[in-house]
């Protein structure tokens, strides 16, 4: 598990790195940010930035990671960074990438780093516009399945059944009554070259996908499961355990969609019982047997759909069709 410290051998370190200790100078996302103890998204930022290196511009949407990292006069970012509003990061990123291009810079990568609220909901229109324009932007969504910064409200990424402060548990309604948005498939449907679903707890897979997405000329998209202890209701110390269990219990999948072609990176053939991961989280404490059964059915259905799209279903194995030539030149 090589955390691939940012490649910056030999360059001068004017102000970019001034830390109080060797450890505090190591990463492109510095310590001292005010994320909660055990914050999943904070770790995603460190892994993503270190993998991408210094030659990037980060465009951020309002959200937990923006508020905790840029409280004037301090910032945790050691790379060029811009934040404007909650719903316009993809548009801002398009602007930055076109400006760099206009000035003859074709190497600096523009990277949007946004939460699920801005990605699935308020900024979704701007995201779709950016994808259709084919702007050269790498979009990373740290997905903690809720609006954390404003105190745990529901987002389009909140799973079925989960209690949040806007899918409250009462005598008539009990938690979220709709499924998550399949954001990766929706983004892939725009016909872009690379989309991937990763997890904070599978570092090698995550960093590999960051590298592949970075290599794409044009839009690429990563959604990264990054559990939020405060919002999902568990102690910060087990954030990575919850993330691993999400994958092992078919609640989160590791896969890639390259030019529309699905590739499963991890096949949870015999999944862990749902109760193990659901039981760790306060947001699921109220679930009725019926709701748990619904989640189980949904998890298995998603799994089988993914197997089918990746051509791994038993029935497909006998006559898997040859690789179809790409229709859209990329």
């Amino acid at each position, binding site marked *: 598990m090589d955390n691939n410290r940012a490649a910056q051998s030999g360059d001068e370190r004017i102000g970019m790195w001034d830390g109080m200790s060797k450890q505090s100078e190591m990463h492109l996302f510095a310590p001292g940010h005010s994320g909660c103890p055990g914050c999943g998204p904070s770790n995603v930022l460190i892994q993503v930035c270190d993998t991408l290196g210094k030659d990037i511009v980060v465009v951020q949407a*309002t959200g937990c990671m923006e508020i905790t990292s840029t409280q*004037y006069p301090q910032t945790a970012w050691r790379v060029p960074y811009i934040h404007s509003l909650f719903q316009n990061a993809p548009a801002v990123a398009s602007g930055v990438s076109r400006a760099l291009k206009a000035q003859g810079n074709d190497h600096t990568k523009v990277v949007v780093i946004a939460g699920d609220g801005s990605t699935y909901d308020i900024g979704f229109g701007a995201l779709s516009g950016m994808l259709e324009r084919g702007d050269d932007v790498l979009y990373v969504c740290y997905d903690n399945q809720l609006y954390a910064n*404003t105190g745990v*409200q*529901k987002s389009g990424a909140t799973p079925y059944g989960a209690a949040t402060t806007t899918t*409250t548990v*009462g005598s008539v309604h009990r938690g979220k009554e709709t499924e998550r948005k399949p954001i990766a498939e929706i983004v892939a449907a725009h016909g872009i070259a690379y989309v991937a679903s990763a997890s904070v707890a599978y570092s090698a897979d995550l960093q590999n996908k960051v590298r592949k997405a970075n290599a794409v000329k044009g839009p690429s998209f990563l959604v990264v499961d990054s559990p939020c202890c405060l919002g999902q209701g568990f102690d910060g110390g087990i954030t990575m355990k919850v993330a691993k269990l999400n994958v092992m219990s078919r609640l989160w999948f590791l896969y890639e969609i390259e030019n529309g072609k699905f590739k499963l990176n991890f096949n949870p053939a015999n999944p862990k019982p749902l109760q193990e991961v659901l039981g760790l989280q306060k947001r699921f404490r109220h679930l009725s047997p019926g709701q748990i059964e619904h989640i189980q059915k949904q998890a298995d259905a998603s799994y089988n759909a993914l197997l089918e799209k990746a051509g791994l279903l038993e029935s497909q194995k006998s006559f898997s069709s040859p690789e179809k030539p790409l229709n859209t030149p990329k």
Partner: protein
Amino acid sequence: MIKTVEGARVLAEAAVACRLDVVACYPITPTTHLTEELNQFYADGRIPEYLTVEAEFSAISALIGASAAGARTFTTTGGQGLLYMHEPLFSAAGMRLPIVMLVGNRAVSSPLNIWNDEQDTISQRDTGWIQIYCRNNQEAVDSIPQAFYVAEKILLPVMVCVDGHYLTHAVEQVDVPDEKLVQGFLPPYKYPLKLDPQNPVSLGVYANPTHYQTFREDVVADMEAAKEILVEAGKKWGKLTGREYGLINAYKVKDADRVLLSVGSVMDNVVMVVDELREKGEKVGALHLRVLRPFPREEIAKALEGKKVGVIDRDLSIGAQAPIYLEIAEALNGKGAQVSSFYGGLGGRGVKRVHIRELFEKLRKGPVKQWITTEPPKAAMKG
């Protein structure tokens, strides 16, 4: 009954007592607790429909549809959220839809700031929405049923504006009107041209130059007519609760030579200082501008003729004089009054009693135009 409760949470009770049909909310500080409390009422079946929209732009858009279809509608937002409603705010007023919204006043970006001032609602004063400002949570709770009463009678949407943090997050004693009292005050909602297959009218039409301005003239005329209905609602509410409301609230102004005027919770602090200074024999007064739209020009002129008036703007019109000051100065034109403009208290600095004492002093000389609550800024700004 009197409760010790947080502003944002008790406002949900006041709204639900009006028997809402459709609520659509997007969470934003400082009104998240109200958004959450409304959802709890929905989860317990007290509100039939609650949309968790993906953005404030869609909150108002959803309520435009619901209101036109005959539902009584309510939402809440603040700061950036209100700014993201800017376009549909005009549309809702132009379509004469009586939507009621509770705005938790908050500073506007950039820089980003979640604390209190009134830049957000002041920047939306031209949208055609009636604007009621509240000095404290009692006035806020009392103003929601009155907002529906006025909106549904004159068919114009209403913003009830409540200072974020200082009021939305203040836990204090509030006499919460129960549903029976509110139902006695508020007639059921009947939108005359409801979207109805039995009467398939088209709403939100396209008007060419011949007709467009006629509609705008009608909105302007009805906004003026709303003054009477606001006073009517305030009187009717007074009979039921003992707390009467009007367009303005003049406290010890009649014989005052110096008066401070503003909107929102700062006026409670001014009232406390007025009491202090009156004990020392100083003839000072406080005038709360409860209704900013429609702007009560005549009432202001009558109340402040010949006095030294200080207008506190916790908002800005960048490149011009402070917005509320400008309107007050115009209303007092030729009335022998001396109007000063004090602006500041932005982004959570607030205007505290220590500042208010200074402002009353400055009014002795006047008229002046200056910042208030200026900390030693330049040093802090170096960054």
